[in-house]
């Protein structure tokens, strides 16, 4: 924990293979950060597809039944099933159990990684609020929750990563009390598979969803990325604030997203050199 500008208490830990930053702006209660990071570690224990002993790995090997799993695991799997049904199968955490899928380390038969990070942050935010925190931000490898304000009279400014220019953001949103999730194909190549066809997702390089619940935002962003050309409309039908960036650099925003976008940050000319290999 370290003191930052504006009296912020900032703590970063490396969990889930990524950096989690907790930025608390209310006068200090050091136990809050400890509790939040203890929660993140518990989530890793339960859900890591890289750990053979995690509940999610044991479920994948059929050593554990859903009925015997922890309440957290059951809740996450129920949410995953809900998004699978809503997306007509574009989001399916059991895709890895398909016998045609070649097993890969870290990608289990049941892999809720597309939702669990957002879900864990959402629950962490609820715990922080229950403990009296009102103004904070959490960022876990690109999934972001903001609450209240960074300082009186200002709002949280959250950038959306430019897909192929590392030192730029595609736009900046002014937000409060929402979750922002971005799914993209630019970080780990064409690793996003359409569960319906088994083929890599195409057309969209990046999908950002802003919603009250980061768990759903996370999963919806992944589903829309898989849906490709139908993704933006599918999100709009659900009245979700969303921005998509296509492989050829076309930025599409809907009315709810535009209400959050800060005017001074829109890229005047979006002229990508082309997607990274």
């Amino acid at each position, binding site marked *: 924990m370290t003191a930052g500008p504006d009296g912020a208490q900032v703590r970063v830990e490396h969990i889930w293979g990524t950096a989690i930053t907790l930025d608390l702006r209310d006068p200090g209660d050091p136990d809050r950060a400890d509790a939040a990071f203890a929660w993140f570690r518990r989530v890793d224990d339960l859900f890591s597809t890289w750990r053979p002993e995690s509940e999610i790995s044991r479920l994948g090997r059929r050593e554990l039944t859903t009925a015997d799993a922890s309440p957290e695991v059951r809740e996450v799997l129920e949410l995953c099933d809900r998004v699978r049904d809503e997306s007509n199968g574009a989001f399916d955490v059991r895709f890895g159990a398909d016998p045609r899928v070649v097993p890969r380390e870290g990608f289990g038969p049941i892999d809720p990684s597309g939702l669990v990070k957002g879900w864990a942050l959402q629950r962490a935010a609820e715990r922080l609020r229950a403990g009296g925190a009102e103004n904070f931000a959490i960022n876990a490898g690109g999934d972001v929750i903001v609450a209240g304000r960074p300082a009186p009279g200002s709002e949280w400014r959250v950038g959306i990563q430019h897909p192929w220019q590392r030192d730029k953001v595609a736009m900046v949103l002014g937000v409060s009390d929402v979750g*922002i999730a971005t799914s993209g194909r630019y970080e780990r190549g064409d690793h996003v598979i359409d569960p319906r066809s088994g083929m890599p997702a195409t057309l969209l390089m990046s999908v950002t969803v802003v919603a009250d619940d980061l768990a759903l935002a996370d999963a919806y962003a992944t589903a829309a990325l898989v849906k490709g050309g139908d993704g933006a409309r599918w999100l709009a039908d659900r009245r979700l604030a969303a921005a998509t960036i296509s492989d050829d650099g076309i930025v599409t925003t809907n009315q709810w997203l535009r209400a959050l976008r800060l005017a001074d940050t829109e890229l005047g000319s979006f002229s990508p050199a082309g997607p990274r290999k």
Partner: protein
Amino acid sequence: MRRAVPVIAATAGALALLANFHTRPAVSSLALASPSSTLAPTSAPPTAATTTSAPPAPGSTAAGTPSTVAPATPTTAATVTRTFNGPVVTTDYGDVQVRVTMRGTQLVDVQALQLPFDRSRSQQISAEAAPMLRSEALRAQSANINAISGASYTSGGYIQSLQGAIDRARA
């Protein structure tokens, strides 16, 4: 979920900026200088106008000026450029070591001295996470942004070595 790695509790302010972007041009406890022109974000922070259009009242000193309108004043130390090597961090994928370049108290560059290349997974981390974290570390001090939403990335030992380098720079 990616492979579990040892938890690193980061305590120095600069590392906290890896994934977190403080917005104020004000002089802070981290003593971050204002962004240099080479690191300027795509659009000027709206608060920049405040810093240039509000001269201190007569009789007030820079130190006495409210921090929200005080321009970050370059100090003598801000002109000194030095490099610091982080420790060699052994990860599951190989050894990682980074070097930071500081101008005064400002982080101006991060270079990887060693990255693992022995396995495909290592190459993935080396090729993707390192540039990502480098740009985030630099952008942290230049962009008027609190956080970045993007596709998830992995970091391995890079953060740990970066932390060590920054600690040495601040020692």
